[in-house]
């Protein structure tokens, strides 16, 4: 049991997995000498040496391709791409190679590679460095895509991702690195001696109910899950609204059942994402929910998302474009009002 940052959880889990399994190697720009742009790999070069912690040239397509080849031949590379924005340079390798090789060549080789990369805006990094491409990757069969929101899930999903025999896109978020959370298994003997207990990993393809509730289901992933949970707690405390918060955390495969069951219970739903509104992950979530829970909906499902513009650099404008707690509260209230929540509560 330990309260640590998301960053620390990633760092410690990488180190543990590398100790556990010699075939786990790290590749990426500035991850060795410089210890990573976001210091996730701090100290790892020292411990594991340059054969297992490899500083690559600034050439995403090249080193992602190299990692795919290494994975096919038995290593378990964990590639860091400095931000998701640069992964576009490696898109062909990821989409046309990593995702396809196992399928196109009679299952002769698998690609047990993890591609870690942070998404997200809000850091004043301007339009080209502040994007989310969750929906792009989640769209591709052959990839697995996870986007943990808590240190515990970051740990559990990173373990699962490294041990998975398919390529996994592991989406972090810049604004999450410093967030803290309980990581129950961390530091326990069982987990550090290489024999991790079964409950230490988080199964890819499962959503998490972060908080139970009965009046409305709030669905989110990655950073917005943290915001959603805060909003839900506050609304419950201040106004007695019971909101169930679901962290999707695995975008492909998607745990539709958990979403549907929740909405069948609450009859109301708001979906939040940091991505752009149109064609986003939220659209898929809403479609899945209405397919499975149509007869249980008492109001249209609402989405809250980023304004559909290249994210501005100016701080005020950047903040205005990103979805915030206030937007969430507004959407929740609209949804509740549209379904008579008030009238049911207040005594006649």
């Amino acid at each position, binding site marked *: 049991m330990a309260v640590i940052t998301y960053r620390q959880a990633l760092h410690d889990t990488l180190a543990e997995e590398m100790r556990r399994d010699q075939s786990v190697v790290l590749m990426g720009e500035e991850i060795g000498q410089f210890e990573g742009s976001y210091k996730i790999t701090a100290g790892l070069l020292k411990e594991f040496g340059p054969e297992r912690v490899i500083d690559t040239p600034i050439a995403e397509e090249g080193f992602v391709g190299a990692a795919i080849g290494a994975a096919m031949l038995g290593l378990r590379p964990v590639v860091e791409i400095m931000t998701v924005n640069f992964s576009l340079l490696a898109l062909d390798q990821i989409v046309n190679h990593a995702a396809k090789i196992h399928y196109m060549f009679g299952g002769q080789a698998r690609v047990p590679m993890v591609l870690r990369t942070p998404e997200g805006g809000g850091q004043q990094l301007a339009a080209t460095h502040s994007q989310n491409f969750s929906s792009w990757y989640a769209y591709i069969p052959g990839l697995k895509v996870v986007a943990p929101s808590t240190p515990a899930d970051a740990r559990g999903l990173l373990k699962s991702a490294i041990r998975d025999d398919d390529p996994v896109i592991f989406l972090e978020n810049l604004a999450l690195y410093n967030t803290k959370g309980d990581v129950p298994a961390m530091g326990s003997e069982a987990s550090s001696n290489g024999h991790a207990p079964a409950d230490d990993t988080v199964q890819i393809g499962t959503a998490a109910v972060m908080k139970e509730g009965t009046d409305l289901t709030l669905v989110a992933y990655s950073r917005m899950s943290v915001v959603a949970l805060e909003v839900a707690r506050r609304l419950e405390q201040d106004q007695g609204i019971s909101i169930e918060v679901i962290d999707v955390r695995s975008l492909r495969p998607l745990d539709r059942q958990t979403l549907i069951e929740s909405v069948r219970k609450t009859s109301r739903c708001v979906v939040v994402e940091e991505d752009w509104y149109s064609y986003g992950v939220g659209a898929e979530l809403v479609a899945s929910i209405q397919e499975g829970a149509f007869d249980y909906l008492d109001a249209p499902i609402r989405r809250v998302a980023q304004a*559909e*513009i*290249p994210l501005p650099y100016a701080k005020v404008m950047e903040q205005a474009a990103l979805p915030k707690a206030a*937007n969430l509260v507004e959407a929740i209230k609209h*949804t509740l009002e549209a*379904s*008579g929540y008030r*009238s049911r509560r207040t005594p006649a």
Partner: protein
Amino acid sequence: MAEVTMPRLSDTMEEGTIATWLKKPGDAVSRGDVLAQIETDKATMDLTAFEAGTLQEILAPEGTTVQIGKPVARIGSGKSAPQPSGTEGGQPSKARGAEPSETDRAEPSTRAAEQVPEEDGGQPSAGEGEQPSGTDRGGPSTRGAEQPSGTDAGQTSGRERDQPSGTEGSQTPKTPGAEQPSGMDGDQPSEISRAESSRTDGSQASKSPEVEPSGGGQSSAAANGKVRASPMARHIAAEHGLDLSDIHGSGPQGRVIRADVEAALGAPAGQDALAPGQQAQETSKPQPQDAQPGQEGSQAQTQAAQPGQEGSKAQTQAAQPAQDGDERIALSQMRRTIARRMAESTRTVPHFFLTTVVDATELGALRKQINDQTAEANGVKVSFNDLIVKGAALAVRKVPEVNVSFAEDSLIRHSHVNVGIAVATDRGLIVPVLRDADLKSLGAIAKETRDLADKANNGKLQPPDYSGGTFTVSNLGMFGVEQFQAVINPPESAILAVGAISKEPAEYHGEIALRDRLRLTLSVDHRALDGAVGARYLQALKALLEKPMLLLV
């Protein structure tokens, strides 16, 4: 110009009632669009369009009952339906559906706002520079998809809403009854509904072209005959047999929401008529074929004798004036169907009845053994009814003469043994059909029967679930009814009425012993079969049930 006629939506359907029109005169219609919902004798089903065009005229208003094949509406070919006069808001309406782009000139403001989103959705980054101001910010492309407002309430709604409100409203095909496009509702209902009447959106041709009489403002729910209700509200209302149009909608634009339905349920009135006593409990169990078996049977007998009278009796009853405190309950389509078919059966089918007593002791022992060993693994218990259904089906196989339909100048001998199982529900009696019951294992019969009964109780049976039966089993045993005579379910030729199993002293291996005894009564259509065939059938069935291992091999 094409006529839309009342389709045949189920085997037994002869007429249907227009429950709800989902399109109005002037609406554009694509092939496959749902025009209306039709209440048939068994379920509420969709009336879909086979022609594209414009709904010209509704010939059968909601609530009217129309015979199969009779016209209910007319669809014309025009693309841009001339809006029914007077419905247009007057201003920027311009039949949009017709010529998407030419109209711009006319109302620049509307068009500007409208086009932007489209382009925008196309290339978010490139085209962006344009200043079409706030409009696109929010979720421009979403415009077409309609929901936007509430949603981008997220961060952009403010902007969206600041838009020249007329514009906004006018392009959002807000239509009562079209349900989902309602995303707006939360926001500014009155404004929208005012504006929305003014025009329709080309991109939504098939859906949106509904035109609301202007000034309809608030309670659009019933104003034009459509009921705006949330899926949840519909679901609950359907479960309880409530008519949504009777319920006041308190949601946005008069939408009926769950709270409204629950309030209506809380109120004493409005409940569906329950047949007296009969379905009090145990509605999920397979049940008798006829509504009031005891009576019906005896009636049926006399009936066969003097067919003429029944009709007049029924009339006098109907005519009887209600007295103080009495309540007149309109017949549901289902009740109407039961009434018609049962009357028709007793009037036209000469019934005779054969009863046999089965020693069911072994049957009970076998059932216990089966359930002890398999119930857990299979997740379902085998009931006496399941055993009897299986036996009845096998016996039909042995005496296939029973598996016929009388068709005036011929007999149709059925190749499959499809056993109908009478189920009493809150709404009335229905007979879902277990296909090829003779070929199915007891476990499969148990499971399917339970599924069908659940569906029946939830009003979810689809025509294939209750059509095509060749023989019916009706069971009142669970109510302690010793024996009864069931009314044949035409065009079948026989029905088996199953009584309760009770302990009785009986001869057993030369001595008197307490044995489980079961009375089975077969009602037979004498036009199709004679007494001896019916007797052979019962003999075969009795043999199967008394040596029940035969049901398993």
